């Protein structure tokens, strides 16, 4: 079945530096969309950005991600992190031709230090 892998459970970055959170996936389907959800402490997860177009950069709130079907990846990046970016980040996919449910990865906790 479909799966999403986030290899880093915890990432610590100094404020002002760049960050990349890894996300790879496995799916047998071509009609698939990809997402990043963010969960701040004591809050509910919420959508950060979405993409379904290969090799097209998607941006929101200073973060960006590019879907690369050739490498089955959808990494999340930011050029200069802020303290307020500290949160739990989940990568997810949905098979638009099948059951309409989001499949999430294990999550990556990003901690930004001053």
């Amino acid at each position, binding site marked *: 079945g479909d799966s999403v892998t986030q290899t880093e459970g915890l990432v610590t970055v100094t404020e002002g530096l760049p960050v990349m959170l890894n996300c790879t996936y496995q799916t047998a389907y071509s009609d698939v969309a990809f997402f990043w959800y963010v969960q701040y402490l004591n809050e509910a997860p919420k959508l950060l950005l979405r993409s379904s177009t290969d090799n097209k950069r998607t941006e929101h709130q200073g973060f960006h991600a590019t879907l690369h079907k050739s490498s089955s990846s959808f990494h999340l990046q930011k050029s200069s992190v802020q303290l307020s970016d500290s949160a739990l980040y989940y990568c997810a996919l949905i098979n638009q031709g099948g059951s309409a449910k*989001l499949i999430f990865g294990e*999550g990556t906790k990003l901690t930004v230090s001053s």
Partner: protein
Amino acid sequence: NAGVIQTPRHKVTGKGQEATLWCEPISGHSAVFWYRQTIVQGLEFLTYFRNQAPIDDSGMPKERFSAQMPNQSHSTLKIQSTQPQDSAVYLCASSPDWASAETLYFGSGTRLTVL
């Protein structure tokens, strides 16, 4: 719009007891999902309803977990004979588009602790 409402926020049960978790989706949303959140597994899909009908329960442990949606304003997740490994945050989410539930609106979750 109050968002997705989940009650209780915290629940503590003894091993072997029953736990019922409640979810009120956003009014007008036709799809309701249940996920389980743990540090190790992340967000695990449990089950979902579309227009109150059960669509996919492939993530539900079959023997002790059950979910219902008796009307469009609430859904329940029931865990019978709770075990310590059931301890987790249970998140309910709703989506306005039943055809492709891409944008999920999550509740704040119920933290279940089984002693």
